[in-house]
Structures are given as structure tokens and as C-alpha cells.
């Protein structure tokens, strides 16, 4: 940036910041900022303003570093990105009004100065947006992984008997995982009976039913048996309405009944002592 522009902004920095802070009060309609104490807001605004002005003196890399650590802290405490994008827009507006009233800038230079400030503010906006979206993507990635780990666990409850509790929506990706984990688990735990518990599956449509039927068929192929448990009454009715045939493998209403049936099939039973 041209030194004359920097100088212009620098000499007027106090009035710019003052004016900007006044403007910032009007954009505090957001839930988060509303609930934060005024003291915190003033502090963040001051820090933000200092940082914006500060980037003028720093070289590019240093400015980036500062902005990054500032953004990280804000992301961590949950500040909305919109507060800062709005803030920067406001800052630009304040600067522009300053430029139009400042007579020391020759009219031939106004456009140039205008462009320089645009670029400067834009690069800050871009970096903040990048930092925020980067952090969101990272969180999303971690959640996706966590979800995947939770999505299709096979639990060996007794010798030769395993349970797969399914909770939540089943999509194609998850259906694939269910099949893989079932087959691998059966081999690993030497299961003869696997219980698939769908108590926690909100909707059983034809696709979900289709995946369950396929999984049961694959289980049969590796020499084990599949029992479907946890069919709620309303799910039973929709399955009948849809005309889905689940007659190829046994079904039980509850996990308990399923386990009893599984023990029976492996020639064991639970007795009271």
C-alpha cells in the first residue's frame, strides 16, 4: 500500500476507531453479542480495531499470524463470523466517508486510495472467512469420523451371539458399513447368531428394509443367522403397508426376546439359580 494512504489512515486512526465503535453498537442484534456483557464487547471491538489498524504496519506474514491467532480465539469462544464481516464493512464505510471529507487527498488520487483500502479490507475479510470455514470444515470432519465410529458397532454379548444396535438414520454409506462390520465381526467373534436391533431407527422405508434384507442374506452366506429385533408397532404397520417381505429371517419385538431365541438356537438357556 502507498505510504500516503497509510499515513492518512494512521493520522486519523483515533477518529476512525471512535466513529466505527459508535456504528458497531447498531449491529449488535445478534443473539450471541446480545448476551455478551458490554465490557466484553467493548474489549473485543477495541482489540479488533487495533488489529485492523495494526496490520498496516506489519508485513503480510506477520499480519496474517496476528489475524489468525485473533480468529482462533474468537472461533473458540463462539463469536459469530457475521459480526466481524459486518464490522469490517462498517469500517470500510467509515474510511470512505473520511476520505470524501478529507481535503488533503487530491481528487486525482481519490479513486486510487479508495481501491487500496478496498484491497486491504478485503484481504482481512477473506482471511477471517477462511479461518472460520477452515475451522468448521475441521469440526465437520471430526464429527463425521466420530459418527462413523458410532454408526455400526457389533458387540459380542455371549459366546456365539453378537448384537448390532442401530440408532438413527440409515443412509447408503452407513448401510455399507453395517454390512462390512457384520460380516467381519461374525468371523472375528465366531458368532452363530447376530441380532440387529432397530429400536432406534426412526424410519424404515424400502431402502432401509432392502439393506437389512441384504445384510441378513450375507450373514446367512457366511454360516450365521440373523434375527431382527426392536420392531416398534408403528414400524411393523408401515412395513406391512409398504408390502415388504421380511419373512426370510426371524424377527422379535425386543432385544431380550431376541437373545433368548439366540441362546435357544445355540442350545443354551438362562435359568434361575
Amino acid at each position, binding site marked *: 500500500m502507498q505510504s500516503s494512504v497509510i499515513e492518512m489512515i494512521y493520522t486519523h486512526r483515533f477518529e476512525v476507531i471512535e466513529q466505527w465503535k459508535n456504528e458497531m453498537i447498531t449491529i449488535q442484534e445478534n443473539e450471541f453479542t446480545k448476551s455478551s456483557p458490554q465490557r466484553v464487547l467493548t474489549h473485543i471491538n477495541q482489540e479488533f480495531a487495533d488489529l485492523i489498524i495494526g496490520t498496516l504496519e506489519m508485513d503480510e506474514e506477520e499480519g496474517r499470524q496476528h489475524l489468525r491467532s485473533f480468529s482462533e480465539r474468537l472461533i473458540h469462544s463462539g463469536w459469530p463470523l457475521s459480526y466481524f464481516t459486518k464490522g469490517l464493512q462498517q469500517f470500510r464505510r467509515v474510511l470512505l466517508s473520511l476520505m470524501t471529507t478529507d481535503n488533503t487527498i487530491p481528487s486525482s488520487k481519490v479513486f486510487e486510495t479508495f481501491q487500496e483500502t478496498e484491497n486491504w479490507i478485503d484481504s482481512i475479510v477473506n482471511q477471517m472467512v477462511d479461518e472460520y470455514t477452515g475451522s468448521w470444515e475441521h469440526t465437520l470432519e471430526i464429527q463425521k469420523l466420530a459418527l462413523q465410529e458410532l454408526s455400526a458397532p457389533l458387540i459380542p454379548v455371549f459366546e456365539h451371539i453378537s448384537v448390532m444396535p442401530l440408532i438413527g438414520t440409515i443412509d447408503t454409506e452407513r448401510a455399507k458399513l453395517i454390512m462390512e462390520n457384520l460380516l467381519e465381526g461374525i468371523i472375528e467373534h465366531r458368532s452363530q447368531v447376530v441380532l440387529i436391533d432397530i429400536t432406534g431407527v426412526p424410519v424404515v422405508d424400502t431402502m432401509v428394509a432392502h439393506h437389512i434384507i441384504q445384510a441378513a442374506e450375507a450373514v446367512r452366506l457366511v454360516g450365521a443367522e440373523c434375527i431382527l429385533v426392536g420392531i416398534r408397532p408403528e414400524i411393523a404397520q408401515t412395513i406391512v403397508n*409398504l408390502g*415388504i417381505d421380511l419373512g426370510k429371517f426371524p424377527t422379535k419385538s425386543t432385544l431380550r426376546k431376541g437373545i433368548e431365541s439366540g441362546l435357544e438356537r445355540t442350545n443354551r438357556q438362562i435359568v434361575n439359580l
Partner: protein
Amino acid sequence: MSVQSNVEVHSEWGIVSARQAGRNLAKELGFAGVDQARITTAISELARNIYLYAEKGEIVLEGIEGKEAGGAKRGLKIVAKDQGPGIKSIREVMEDGYTTSGGLGAGLPGVKRLMDEFDIDSVAGEGTEITTIKWLR
């Protein structure tokens, strides 16, 4: 009645949000648990068809009022719209077990059985619009 919501379907998550919206509306209109499950399952089928065959489209949910012998009745209307390839033979897709995707082929005839009224309007190459209603009893 003014309760209406549109849900865009262009990924599997669209199916989930359409379902969620349907369940909420059904609850609001006073449908019992079994009918809520029927409505959500029907929405799930329709939304999945959109995602599977047309890639994108929308599900419009609306609380409606109709007339019957005893007076006014309330219901939930689902409209599934897409600009996909359309259905070549409506008679065939309404047969149980007919499928072009390797699925169970129970989707559309299933939806018809789950709901009270069912209507398909489809032009090959232009798109499909399915309207279906469940009345509150």
C-alpha cells in the same frame, strides 16, 4: 390453512430434513403415532425417489382442509416435484416388485397404501409431480 414448508432434496441429507419437517407438521396437525410413521415413511420414499432418479427436486408439505359428509376434515398434503427423467410407464411403477434401481420395488405402490389419496403426473423427459394426502381421522 397456512402451514406450508418446502424442502429441497439434492442429497441424502435432504431426505432426512424432508422427513423431519413432515414428522413435525404431522405432529402439529394432531396425527397419531402410527400415522406419523406412515407419513414420514411416505415422504422418505418420495424424497429418495427424487434423489435416486432426478438427483434434485423438492418436497412441499402442507396442512389442508377438505370436505366430507360429516363436515370439514383436515389433512396433510405432500407434493414431490422434480424435473428428472419422468416415468415411462406409470402402470408398471405402480406394480409391486417393479424396480429399475435394484431395490425392492415397493416404493410407489407402498406410498399409495400408506396414504389416503395418491396422484402421479409425469411426462417422460420433463419431470414428475406426485401429490398424496393423508386425512386426519
